[in-house]
């Protein structure tokens, strides 16, 4: 079996078989990222296609083949951010009712929800919230990095995250998940 570094090298030479193998290796992971950052599966597919084209067009710039996993993930995230900037910049989150919940009201039955159900909650977040929530909570970026990536201040990133979580809790409430026990 060809290892990942050899695969990357072959892709850098635009070898079509290597591109196909590379695609099959990363297609699931990258679609997973796309699904988190978008509202609908259609948008996810758009970003997914665009990201893969970018990856193959720019893979020759990748110097450390060992870091390809992080690099492709980062490429997808940046593609999603660009998509979000291009198409959704005018959306203002004025429909958000600021219902502050107590930090003690953690949902305790999250474990019972499937990934798809949780994903639906994330998808329903306003775009700015969804971006910050994904970047900070799941992909591990700091608020400073998020501010730079999104072109906002660090504090804006923090407030966006806060409101994202509050909105998630609000959405979870009708599902009966109103408290969460720390373990």
């Amino acid at each position: 079996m060809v290892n990942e570094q050899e695969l990357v090298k072959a892709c850098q030479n635009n070898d079509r078989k290597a591109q196909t193998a590379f695609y099959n290796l990363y297609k699931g992971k990258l679609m997973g990222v796309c699904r988190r950052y978008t509202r609908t599966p259609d948008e996810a597919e758009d970003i997914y296609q665009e990201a893969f084209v970018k990856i193959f067009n720019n893979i020759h710039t990748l110097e450390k083949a060992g870091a390809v996993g992080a690099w492709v993930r980062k490429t997808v995230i940046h593609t999603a951010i660009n998509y979000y900037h291009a198409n959704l910049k005018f959306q203002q989150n004025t429909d958000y009712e600021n219902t502050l919940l107590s930090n003690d009201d953690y949902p305790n039955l999250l474990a019972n929800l499937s990934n798809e159900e949780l994903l639906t909650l994330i998808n329903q977040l306003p775009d700015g919230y969804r971006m910050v929530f994904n970047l900070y909570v799941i992909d591990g970026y700091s608020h400073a990095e998020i501010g730079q990536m999104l072109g906002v201040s660090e504090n804006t990133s923090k407030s966006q995250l806060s409101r994202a979580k509050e909105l998630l809790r609000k959405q979870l409430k009708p599902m009966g998940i109103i408290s969460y026990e720390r373990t």
Partner: protein
Amino acid sequence: MNALDNENDPFEDVFRNRFADFESEPDFQLWNKIEPQLPVKPTRKIPYWQISAIALIMLLSGLSVYHFSQSSEENTTTLAEVLPKGMPKTEPQFVPTKGEKTSLNNNIENSKGLPINISSPEKNRETSDDNQTTPLFVAPQTDKILKNVRKNIIADNFTGEAKNEIFIEPNSEKNAIYEIESENKAKKYNKKNKEKLNLFATRTSNKGIVENYHKINENIFDVQGNKSPLFNVFNNNQGFSLTTLNSKDYSLLSKDFRKLKLKYVTLPKEDKYFKESKPIDLYFSVMPLLNYYTITPNGNDANYVHGIAVNDDGDRLGFYTQSGVIFTLSERFKLRTGLTFTNTNHSINYQIRTDSLVVQSPDNKGVDVSFAEINQTYSQSANYLGTKIELQYLFLKGEELTHYVNVGVEGAYRLNGNHQLNGFANFAYGVTRQIGDNAYLFVEPTFSYSLNQQSDSNAFLLVKPNKIGFNIGVNFKIK
């Protein structure tokens, strides 16, 4: 905002654990959409040194064709081609006699060549005094002399006098006559003096054997315009020469130099350029491209996009090749159509001002708007396959160069990326000249104006990929 301060928020942990390695199986058809957009191995960037090499090879080939075609013309011209219609074509007389050889030997020893004064019979009668001019070169020996002869011919032509000094060089591979004709052609002598030398074609081998020759006994006039002198052509082991025969009697060469008159025949100047024997030409050309963009922000993005700058680090460069056929519509108009292949490279930097994160303040009394600048780059390499049709107007036909203008349209389909169809209006000014019997070299600066716009992947910019190119190509007439 306690949650923000809590790095180990269990609420976040739930999502982090669930989605950090979350995978989702994509539709299997997506690969079919992605694959055509991927870069392909062999057709990517052709290094510019290769393009330069191709252009150089074409140029050298053109020059070679030109050179050999000139040589070919010199060696294949025959009496039949030189003589006008109705002019009698007589067989040469070859009268090698012992006496002649003696005369020749003496002549070669003394002068190693024969000058002949030639004039037009029409002018001959009017300017007979001029035709009595003593030949300037009696004993030419070297190339230097030959050059002097040529110079005198040119000078005479500029004065408008149909008077030439001809010297046939001993041991020469080429007939001196053709040397002179060639020189005249190169110097573009006076148009009024369009006489074509009507003498004979003689060629000697290294051994001095006369391989073929023609002479026109009937067309040799004396000073009074009467047909009387004859001349013989003969050879020895070193070269060939001419002697004159007056009334079929031998005479000393030195006495007959001034009396020998060969008829100068006036022919229309051959216009090889526009002998449209066939109405269809094939053409091929290649040119380097410089992309010259018209860039505008896309719609409402105008409020957010600014600081647009095209990278001038060579990314603008591309190349353009085309091949097709040219139909001759009339003397002045031609129609050119064919296939084109274009490689262009885009690299444009721009900045976006974003205020997309507009949120309500916690107290719900205001909005928190944050601006920022993001640097973006629009960069891509695109290949286009297209077809074009152009109308060519020949507005200036020179003796060697012809000038024309081209106006046409081109449709180009992008082979990679988003497969966009682009339209171009092409404007060109061209200069062309013949480089062979059926080959023409053309140089054609071209401007292509894009009729539609491309957009970058984010749709922030609308780009018209206009092109400026320097076309170099060759036309071939179909035999």
